[in-house]
């Protein structure tokens, strides 16, 4: 079966979730991505390469209350284990996200989204006079992590910083 289930009422299934009622069934195998900032669930799916287009079943839980975050989204992907590399990328648009890898209904691994210290070729500098923009065919974009909360990356070449909103806009 493929497709996306969306839930607009309070609910959830994540082991770490707040006091909410279960609206989406547990998944036997796959990944549960929790603590996504409200409204970012679809961006997370895009960052994962839209797995629903490859036959995976997706459940989206959007805008549920969270004691930590106020409101949050949750994404469940049945049958797909999110890789460590994907978890790192997730941190760019959902820096507080946590990923539970599920096998046979049991959480066998927890992966926290940790922003990579260095990003190569993922973000683009917004300074039009930066060499990574003007010579983009031969100069890779390289960004260094300069802040975790709020998330900030700094261009290696021109020093221009990208804030969370700009990063999301590029990746979302």
């Amino acid at each position, binding site marked *: 079966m493929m497709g996306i289930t969306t839930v607009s009422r309070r609910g959830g299934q994540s082991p770490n979730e707040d006091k909410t009622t279960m609206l989406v069934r547990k998944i036997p195998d796959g990944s549960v991505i929790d603590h996504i900032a409200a409204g970012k669930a679809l961006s997370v799916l895009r960052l994962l390469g839209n797995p629903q287009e490859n036959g995976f079943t997706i459940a989206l839980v959007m805008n549920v209350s969270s004691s930590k975050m106020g409101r949050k989204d949750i994404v469940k992907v049945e049958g797909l284990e999110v890789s460590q590399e994907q978890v790192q990328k997730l941190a760019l648009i959902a820096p507080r996200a946590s990923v539970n890898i599920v096998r046979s209904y049991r959480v066998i691994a927890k992966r926290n989204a940790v922003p990579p210290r260095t990003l190569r070729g993922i973000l683009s500098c917004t300074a*039009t006079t930066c060499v990574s923009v003007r*010579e983009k065919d031969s100069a890779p974009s390289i960004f260094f992590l300069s802040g975790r909360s709020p998330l900030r990356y700094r261009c290696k070449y021109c020093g221009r910083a990208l804030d969370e909103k700009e990063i999301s806009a590029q990746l979302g």
Partner: protein
Amino acid sequence: MSRDAWKGRDVISILDFSRQELESLFEAANAFVGPPRPRNDLADYIVATAFYEPSTRTRLSFTTAALRLGAKVIDLSPDVSSILKGESLHDTTMMLEGYSDLIVMRHPSEGAALLAAELSSVPVVNGGDGSQHHPSQAMLDLFTVRRLKGRIDGLTYTVLGDNRYARSATSFLYGLAKFKPKMVYIVSPETLRPRDEITKQLKGLGLRFELRSDLEQVMGSTDVLYLTRIQKERFPDPNEYEKVKGSYKLTKDVLSKGKSGFIVLHPLPRSTELPYDVDSDKSAAYMTQAHLGVPLRMALLLKIIGGGKA
């Protein structure tokens, strides 16, 4: 500092150098001030200059410095080279690397010299990259202060002008952060104040500075007034330039409010902010500053290519 700390080193930002390394450079440069004597220290070396933007002082003082040390100089002219055919900075750098022992590069893009340095096996000296860095200018400026005021520490500096786009001003501020100025006043119209990332960096470096908009308020306590022209060519919007054009100017009247012994520096070229009648004032030190570019850059070349034997 050990002799080898300079050898083969790229010069991208003055932030990459310690106070001790800068002082060592200044000591070496002192030996080259005065009537030139024939030298052949770099007789076996070739220096390449690659200026993608106009330059008078940086280009010619590097060329003079190289020639005075016996080196040969080759010059890439963007208007008659394959750059006109769209050759990339990557490929141009790879050519210069094969033809020379050191590359001095000026480029309109921020980060160009850093990229060239990553590509090149021979040292790259940043002669200015966009509105970002101009390290040898900052070294020269600090050297000038040291020679004319006897010290860099403990003085009050006023950096007046285009502190947003002038790479010389930014690099001078970064250079000051390596020392212990008494105070640095950064004076400019609101729209020409340093970019946020620069003020954050200066704070992180522990530089004691204040953003001001009125020069006259700080003239009485200023030991070194560092002036820059508005960088018309770097404004993304010509209308924004029109709004600030002519917004500050150093006049004899303002100079008369200066404290005894203060000096005026300017990386040049000048525009309307520095009238010619200031040249005759005893505070005017910018021609001396420009001339000191040769001994400073002689020391720099010798340290990088010659292995610190300057």
